[in-house]
């Protein structure tokens, strides 16, 4: 191979990369919070809700899990305006990621809820706690502790999947890469560096989630 790599040609664009990186991080944080909230609702609906709500939530989960994220994104960004719902790039990206994580976390959290021993729920009920109190203080707390590692992996997967939002011109890290390579014609170098940044982001995200988990679930014993 005679080709020489020219990483120096990236240097003038470092601020664009930084901007894209920050955007990707913010996108991930917002949709993680919203997606987990949606998943908690979904899991509660599937476990404690009426039968029709369980079915409906189940359908949502299966549709999302069995279609590509990019198609979900295009449907939201291009398809919904035709139905009268107009969204800008960033909102569409956040919405798509939230809906996506919401489906996966519904199933993850549901498995956690099902692993909570029935006796604990009955004990809570016998202490005259309301259904909602039992759910919040007894069931969800235990469920989350159990499924936290699985949820963390899913968050990293969603973060990596977010590279696709560049396709609707949301200005994330991949968007920055596409822009830079169209200017300096060093596509391979740009994508190699950006892949490295994503790898770093994945490693940091995993570590951060582990740290948060240790803080939140640091209980007595065990």
């Amino acid at each position, binding site marked *: 191979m005679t080709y020489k790599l020219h990483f120096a040609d990236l240097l003038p664009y470092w601020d664009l990369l930084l901007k894209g990186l920050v955007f990707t991080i913010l996108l991930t944080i917002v949709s993680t919070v919203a997606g987990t909230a949606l998943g908690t609702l979904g899991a509660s609906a599937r476990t404690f809700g009426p039968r029709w709500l369980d079915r409906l939530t189940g359908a949502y989960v*299966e549709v999302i899990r*069995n279609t590509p994220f990019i198609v979900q994104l295009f*449907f939201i960004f291009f*398809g919904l305006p035709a139905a009268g719902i107009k969204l800008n790039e960033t909102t569409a990206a956040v919405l798509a990621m939230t809906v996506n994580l919401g489906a996966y976390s519904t199933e993850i959290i549901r498995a956690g809820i099902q692993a909570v021993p029935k006796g604990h729920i009955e004990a809570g009920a016998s202490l005259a706690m309301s259904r909602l109190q039992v759910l919040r203080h007894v069931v969800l707390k235990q469920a989350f502790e159990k499924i936290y590692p699985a949820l963390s992996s899913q968050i990293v997967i969603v973060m990596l999947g977010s590279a696709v939002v560049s396709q609707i011109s949301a200005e994330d890290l991949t968007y920055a890469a596409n822009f830079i390579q169209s200017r300096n014609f060093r596509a391979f170098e740009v994508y190699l560096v950006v892949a490295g940044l994503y790898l770093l982001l*994945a490693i940091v995200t995993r570590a951060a989630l582990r740290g948060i988990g240790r803080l939140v679930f640091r209980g007595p014993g065990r």
Partner: protein
Amino acid sequence: MSDFSFWVILSNLLLATRWTIALSLVAFASGGLVGLALLFARVSRIGWLEWTTKAYVEFFQGTPLLMQLFLFFFGVALFGIEVSPWLAAWLALTFWTSAFLTEIWRGCVEAIPKGQWEAADTLAMSYMQQMWHVILPQAFRIAIPPTVGFSVQVVKGTALASIIGFVDLTKAGTMLNNATFRPFLVYSLVALIYFALCFPLSWFAHRLERTFNVAR
């Protein structure tokens, strides 16, 4: 008129679906082969081999599939080889698939009880004999449900090949949308077709998992 364009859209999408299926099959098969070779390396008990495989898996699981597609698309060209979207997509999906399958299968190998290794050990079998005759046949059984489950990820993963210009179901959707200006209909149909491909696989994986759990 509107009915006519519905059928035009649907038939064109279905034609493009052939390429989604073809890419999925090819990527899954070659990814599986590479994954199997990597599995041997990953559990070889040879330090540098295990370490290299680990780094490989870390890279392909820790970076976006889209980046990998770009890297192959622009990277192969550096060698002076003309790259078609098909070739780049096939290469990227093969590497990506193999990393995930290696990791899934490693989990299955490690799930085999230590006593099985020890029993084979005390029968004077070599490491490779133990792996081949004792561990892999058992690991293979428990690997089937998660492997089928992962095939869904491969089908969905092929959708990204549209971004580097591979004319699959997703790309056909984009092209038809540009031609007909009916995004809601087009992307609904695209989603529906993907669902029809993926849901049976998901369902089958789930069922396998249940029967395997009962059998144990």
